[in-house]
């Protein structure tokens, strides 16, 4: 049998000097690389930088909210802090986070290809992202904006202060990077699968990235045109969103949420793909209901486009349209719930190893369920009218975006760290930081559900005395969360110097990425992989270096 790739018993040692990390040491060899693995590293470094900026803004917000009078920031300063936090987190961290780092690195490896279909386009997409990032940094240096991340009209077009046009351009440009990445993934998954890698053998990580690429390609251009219209309106007074000329501010919300609701699924679908890998590898068990999980990704991508109006229930949108959007929004819970049930069923009677990646994955499931169920509440017209624009909504989407996506991002980083860097990190510290992140997250955001339910509106930094206790809890949780984010930064970096060398398959996991050396050679595989088995064929793989075995 020529199926070298599925032979998980054999240990493909790194042949000296062939690793992609050793393919060149000059700055040029990194900045002009077309290797998807190196581009993934470039993305990882850039998004970590933007995450830091957005996190500093979050820290300012939480410190300011400790006192009811808002002693730290001025009103304008607070508005600018939450705007920078939202814009940076959404477009410069969360949207590229998993797809452009882990996805970029892993998709070709998982399907047995040498690279993405268009390697130079991949590099171009990073440069576009960097140009957008420079615009965003200019905004930060120039004092920020107070539009909020949603750029609502007429606030943004007529009243907002700060570098509004630069901000809009930054997000506009970053969209092209996203579109090109989605295009590259779609063509790669269609055209570059290894022999035998049929659609029914695709890892679920690849399925979810296929689904997210559809959203990249079909939703992002709508954001682009919307932002162009906003910029044209602010500069030239075009008037499409201006009621005094007969335009409609709600049109902005339709266009914006046509993109931005699917964008929520851009953030959570790759995380779901990660969790499918982490759960099966942690339980050493075949995924329960492969096709349900795979098609649920596609269903989420499609239904996600039909629900945008639930952001506009109190905006003056037609009540009948709101009713339809309410129904459709509830429907999107079905594929999401299917996934949660299947992950849980996969763990059942599994050979579970509670390593850090699995802890992150289980944290994801719990937090995603909390975020998802409160999302169902918000999808209901009658409830949303009461808690709209309160901390209830803030808590809900942070449970999905931070509790879900960021937790999964950290899980993915731990799980594939040995593959990406060739080093093992300190597992004990990994587990501690995973637990710390889950506890800290709940401490930060659960009080916000209570605040919102009591009526605390979002985007206010001066609030009545009786909310202070919950706000202080939330700020304390944010401090804990900061430690949970800084810990991996230190021990992962430390592992680069002093970590033990990683074997090819440290978790005893299936998947083509574990059949090549750690780190992989420049062209990913020394011989063309041929796939002869289905995905997650777990009894055949054996854990090698599990510390608790």
């Amino acid at each position, binding site marked *: 049998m020529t199926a070298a790739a599925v032979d998980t018993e054999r240990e493909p040692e790194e042949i000296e000097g062939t690793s992609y990390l050793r393919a060149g040491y000059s700055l040029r060899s990194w900045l002009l690389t*077309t290797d998807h693995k190196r581009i993934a590293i470039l993305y990882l470094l850039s998004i970590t930088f933007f995450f830091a900026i957005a996190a500093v803004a979050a820290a300012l917000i939480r410190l300011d909210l400790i006192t009811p009078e808002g002693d730290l920031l001025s009103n304008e300063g607070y508005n600018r802090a939450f705007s920078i936090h939202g814009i940076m987190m959404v477009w410069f961290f969360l949207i590229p986070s998993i797809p452009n780092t882990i996805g970029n690195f892993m998709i070709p490896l998982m399907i047995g*290809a*040498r*690279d993405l*279909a*268009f*390697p*130079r386009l991949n590099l171009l997409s990073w440069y576009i992202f960097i140009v957008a990032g420079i615009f965003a940094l200019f905004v930060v240096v120039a004092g920020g904006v107070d539009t909020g991340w949603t750029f609502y009209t007429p606030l943004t077009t007529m009243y907002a202060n700060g570098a509004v046009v630069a901000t809009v351009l930054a997000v506009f440009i970053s969209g092209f990077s996203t*579109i090109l990445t*989605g*295009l*590259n993934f*779609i*063509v790669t998954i*269609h*055209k*570059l699968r290894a022999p035998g890698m049929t659609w029914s053998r695709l890892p679920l990580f690849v399925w979810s990235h296929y689904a997210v690429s559809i959203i990249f*390609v*079909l*939703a*992002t*251009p*709508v954001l*682009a*045109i*919307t932002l*162009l*219209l906003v910029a*044209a309106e602010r500069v*030239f*007074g*075009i*008037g*499409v969103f*201006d009621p*005094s*000329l*007969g*335009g*409609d501010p709600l*049109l902005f919300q*339709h*266009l914006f949420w*046509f993109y931005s609701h699917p964008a929520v699924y851009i953030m959570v679908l790759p995380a779901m793909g990660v969790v499918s890998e982490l759960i099966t590898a942690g339980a050493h068990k075949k995924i329960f209901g492969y096709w349900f999980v795979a098609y649920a990704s596609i269903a989420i991508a499609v239904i996600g486009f039909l629900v945008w109006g639930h952001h506009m229930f109190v905006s003056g949108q037609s009540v009948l349209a709101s009713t339809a959007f309410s129904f459709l929004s509830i429907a999107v819970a079905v594929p999401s719930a299917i996934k949660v049930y299947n992950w849980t069923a996969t763990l059942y009677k599994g050979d579970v190893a509670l390593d850090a990646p699995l802890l992150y994955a289980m944290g994801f499931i719990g937090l995603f369920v909390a975020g998802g169920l409160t999302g169902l509440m918000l999808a209901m017209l009658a409830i949303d009218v009461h808690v709209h624009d309160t901390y209830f909504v803030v808590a809900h989407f942070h449970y999905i975006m931070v509790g879900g996506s960021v937790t999964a991002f950290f899980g993915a980083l731990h799980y594939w760290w040995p593959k990406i860097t060739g080093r093992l990190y300190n597992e004990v510290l990994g587990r501690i930081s995973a637990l710390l992140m889950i506890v800290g997250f709940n401490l930060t955001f659960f009080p916000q559900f209570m605040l919102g339910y009591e009526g605390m509106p979002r985007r206010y930094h001066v609030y009545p005395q009786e909310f202070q206790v919950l706000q202080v809890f939330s700020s304390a949780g944010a401090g804990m969360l900061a430690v949970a984010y800084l810990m991996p930064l230190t021990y992962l970096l430390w592992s680069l110097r002093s970590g033990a060398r990683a074997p090819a398959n440290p978790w005893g996991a299936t998947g083509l990425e574990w059949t090549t050396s750690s780190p992989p050679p420049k*062209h990913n595989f020394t011989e063309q992989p041929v796939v002869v088995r289905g995905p997650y064929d777990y009894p055949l793989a054996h854990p090698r270096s599990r510390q608790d075995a």
Partner: protein
Amino acid sequence: MPEQSRAEIQFHHIGRQREAERLGMLVFLASEIMLFGGVFLAALALRMLHPQEYVAAASHMKLWHGTANTAILLTSSLLVALAVEWTRGGRPKWAARCLWAAVALGLTFLGVKAHEYYLDYREGKLPGAANANFSTPFEQLFSNFYFSVTGLHALHVTAGIILLALAALRGEARHDRHAVFIGNVALYWHLVDVFWIFLYPTIYLAGAGE
């Protein structure tokens, strides 16, 4: 060229690479469709909110400029389709002639457009013009909208003309990779034509006969 050899290793044969590039182009065009989709939703919303004013405002558009430009773009599309056919059929000279003719028509389109803008400028219809001259606020909005949309489309036409010229320069060589390139440029040009096909009733025909 090391890049090329990498691509050759990547795809098992040239046919597969052609498929990949064509699929990539169509996926890109899908995103272009959604970009213009936002424009059409805006037009739909404006028309549903103000049905009569929309028609009245559209009646000020220069119908004959728009109609001439539609005919020009449709003809250029035919020429580009013929160029693709003749590239594959082994008649690169004719393919190149068709592409240059399409470039000429594209430039004519921009010329007609420029003349239309010039007339608008003289009538005080430009966004933010000092001599603004509108009978109703909505007429001004419609005019601004028309400038934004046709401007966006003209940018696409300009990009298309550059791509067509590049394809025509390469058209002499009958290499498989060039055929793929010409095919993809043609797809882009046709889609720019399709956008105009829908902009025509949206902007010009809506006010005809009023």
